[in-house]
């Protein structure tokens, strides 16, 4: 492998602080216009800062160039295939950005009197109604800021529900294959995690569930589940699981990370779930932004409703000939309270509501169909040739919107770890699948193509995997030292944890 440096690799990374030069500036500020006094007359000297923070000094053209250059050192969804499992990297319609930027949305102060924010409250109410229908649960709070925030909300709701019945339960069941946020949220909510085993299909191991319920009788507050599960398989026992949990007095929580598989086909509420979080940045097209923002609204059943966070957006029937109006309801005596400031990530609500309007009920169902079709097609393509031998599917049956391969034979036979395959895919212009998750599959690769991808992209990805495996049969070393063409090559991640350098040192 020729190791000629690419132009981007040759360009040394320089931070904006390193480009700073005293006396340069971009901002032009308005004049004060008012009679000025020395600052120390207005604020006591001992509360004032001696030296301004050492922010960069740089002119506007160079700021623009700096961040444009940095942007080219990112791979993004608009550039290519991004089959990151459980992340639902679907197209981000630019229409949504346009409507979110309308001044009536973007420049609306969150403390505006509800009577003068009727459009915003109506939009939130309409989104609540839409999510309620999609989830099959009657009540929605839009407040949580992300999926993990929704999980915390769900667990605090569970706690409030039990407390209101005079019960204090201490344990939350979660499959050992659950997303890492599940157990982390459980601890934050003051509960103890009890792991439930997973059967070979990635579903809940029913005997173990019964055993854990018996061992912890009267103690189980909740079971947290993802369905379809982390292997991309629908848990056929869900109705029975729900009745076992409900008989034991617990609530059933749905991690909505995989909702994109079932929109318009099956609803968590109908499966027996009490609380669902929805990742608007996954199924409802909010751009991921390189790590946020998102939003994690929750939908709940009647018995959980009294405890929902406040304020809640409500529709009030009009009187005296006025039409209905929308308001923020703070009078919720059993509410768990606030989870954050103001009303939630409204800009995300605008985008997701625009997405729901664009697709409609039929379009959402079709999006899920295409997502499932794409996943099964790619799975079939990867069952052929070398991939079929070296990267077998973890559980061989039809999948929903994603599937998991095991790189165990590849590692054994070719000496190539899943990480090596992932890094080599970068050279082929693909974002790799999620790697090493779920934990129950050795050398796991979790692939979620979403409905966004055309057949051609799926074919190209399958061909790239085939090429990498063929190449490795000849020279395994190529993939083991990959990537070669990216702005930097493999990075020392251990050092960043052992001797963390988390800010620039300035003179």
């Amino acid at each position, binding site marked *: 492998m020729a190791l000629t440096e690419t132009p981007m690799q040759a360009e040394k990374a320089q931070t904006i602080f390193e480009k700073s030069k005293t006396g340069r500036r971009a901002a032009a500020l308005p004049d004060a216009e008012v009679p000025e006094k020395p600052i120390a007359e207005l604020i*006591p000297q001992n509360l004032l800062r001696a030296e301004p923070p050492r922010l960069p000094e740089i002119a506007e053209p160079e700021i623009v160039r700096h961040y444009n250059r940095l942007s080219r050192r990112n791979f993004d969804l608009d550039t290519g295939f991004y089959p990151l499992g459980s992340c639902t990297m679907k197209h981000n319609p630019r229409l949504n950005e346009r409507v979110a930027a309308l001044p009536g949305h973007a420049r609306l102060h969150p*403390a505006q009197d509800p009577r003068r924010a009727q459009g915003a409250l109506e939009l939130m109410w309409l989104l609540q109604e839409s999510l309620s229908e999609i989830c099959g649960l009657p009540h929605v709070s839009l407040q949580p800021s992300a999926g993990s925030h929704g999980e915390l909300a769900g667990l605090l709701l569970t706690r409030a529900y039990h407390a209101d019945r005079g019960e204090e339960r201490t344990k939350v069941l979660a499959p050992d294959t659950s997303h890492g946020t599940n157990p982390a949220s459980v*601890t934050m909510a003051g509960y103890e995690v009890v792991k439930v085993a997973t059967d070979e299909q990635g579903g809940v191991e029913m005997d173990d569930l019964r055993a854990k319920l018996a061992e912890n009788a009267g103690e189980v507050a909740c079971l947290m589940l993802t369905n379809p599960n982390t292997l991309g398989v629908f848990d056929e026992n*869900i109705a029975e699981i729900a009745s076992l949990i409900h008989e034991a007095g617990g609530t059933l929580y749905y991690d909505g990370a995989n909702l994109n598989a079932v929109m318009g086909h099956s609803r968590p509420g109908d499966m027996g779930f009490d609380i669902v979080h929805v990742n608007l940045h996954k199924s409802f097209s909010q751009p991921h932004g390189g790590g*946020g923002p998102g939003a994690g609204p929750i939908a709940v059943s009647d018995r959980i409703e009294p405890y929902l966070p406040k304020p809640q957006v409500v529709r009030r029937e009009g009187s005296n000939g006025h039409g209905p109006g929308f308001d923020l309801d703070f009078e919720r005596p059993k509410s768990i309270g606030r989870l954050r400031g103001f009303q939630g990530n*409204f800009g995300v609500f605008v985008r997701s509501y625009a997405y729901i*309007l*664009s697709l409609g009920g039929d379009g959402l169902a079709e999006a899920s169909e295409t997502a499932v079709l794409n996943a099964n097609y790619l799975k079939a393509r990867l069952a052929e040739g070398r991939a079929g031998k070296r990267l077998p599917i973890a559980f061989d049956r039809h999948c929903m919107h994603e599937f998991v391969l095991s790189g165990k034979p590849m590692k054994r036979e070719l000496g190539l770890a899943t990480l090596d395959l992932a890094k080599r895919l970068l050279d082929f212009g693909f974002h790799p699948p999620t790697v090493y998750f779920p934990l129950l599959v050795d050398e796991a690769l979790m692939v979620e193509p979403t409905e966004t991808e055309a057949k051609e992209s799926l074919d190209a990805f399958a061909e790239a995997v085939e090429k990498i495996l063929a190449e490795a049969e000849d020279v395994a070393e190529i993939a083991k030292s990959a990537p070669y063409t990216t702005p930097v090559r493999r*990075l020392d*991640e251990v050092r960043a944890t052992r001797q963390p350098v988390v800010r620039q040192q300035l003179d």
Partner: protein
Amino acid sequence: MTRYTSATPDDRQEMLDAIGVSSVDELFEQIPEPLRLGRPLALPDGMSEAEVYERLAALAERNADAERQVCFVGAGMYDHYVPAIVDAITSRSEFLTPYTPYQPEISQGGLQVMFEFQTAMSELTGLPVSNAGLYEGPSALASAGYLALGATKRKRFVISRGVHPHSRETLRTYSVGYGAEVVEVGLEGGLTDAAALAEAVDGETAAVFLQSPNFLGAVEDVEALGAAAKEHGALLIVACDPMTLGILKPPGECGADIALGEGQPLGNRLDFGGPSFGFFCATEAQIRRMPGRIAGETEDVNGRRGFVLALQTREQHIRREKATNNICTAQALNALGAMVHLAWLGRQGFRELGELLVQRTAYARERLAAVDGVELLHEAPVAREFAVQLAAPVDKVLDRVAERGIAAGYPLGREYPEFEDGLLVAITERRTKAQIDELAEALGAAIAVDRGGEEAVEAEIAEGVA
């Protein structure tokens, strides 16, 4: 309606053949029959792009935003001017559409932005360690509480009533979960009651929470108040408004262990409350207890400088139930907006903006205090926001002033019943002297109506308000 997908009927057929099924329905058969919806969702049919635009534009039209109304409302989110380059850079697809940078080799842009952002926030707050961002302000404060429990093994919080009411409420919500007691300390003359605070802090206290400027706009003497925390080994956690940190002594120089806050004033829209970001900075001692993503500098195999997610062993995807927090979002795009805004302001501009806010706020405070029926709620020093007490019902006054196209401020009564007709007025660089003068005049007229001034009543009738 088919949108944003490419599969033609021919594609579908070929794909179904490759899978070995006759229809997509067959793939959904793994869902037990009783759990299949079996009907279309009861939602409207899909709409064209033009129709969706019109529908949402019509909703937006029904909001009195800061373009239609002169906005003196603050209370944690402010109508600052966000420079055009922020929109240009944050709308680049390379920043807008990637996921969290799990593959650092193809995410150097986003990771370097995080590193720069951490450096900037560390400079602002005067603390050495910053994370890459949290959801927003109040939940960042609650996360600091969670950190303090782990750091001190104590379960009691003391919080000033000067801390944003949303932050206090959020801390209480979280505390019910992680099992902490929250004790509130009152205000005296607009500032945290120092004697009551010293009284409230004890050897069981995990953290003391202050905010400066506090919710009433008053600049607190954090250093003096924080002594009580130091004495008892509690963490000192300080919420602050980043826009004031060009002027005010940074929390890190006042003994704070953690400085955090709502990041919206930096490069973010009002957006009716979000998305924005929360910032979170701490001393070195807390680095392995920090919530959220942190970027770190490292090298690639050829010795090139690069950036990765550092200290991942704190996080949920590795530590699961032992993680320092469950959060995995960094509000990366919002933090990018902040970084670009800060670079645009630059070292000098950032300070100048702070000075501008202080000068205009001082003018506005003086101007309003001179209005008949308006009194200062406190006389403590302020930076960019101040509180007044009205001699008329605040809601009525706000309605009357709104008729003149002005959002006069944030009514304090709901969250501070002791200030029933209190009003919090915020200043940004967008609020001109002329607007401040008009606000003073409008407030005076609106209050006069309730004070029974005949002229005012007549004026009101003439305007058709009554």
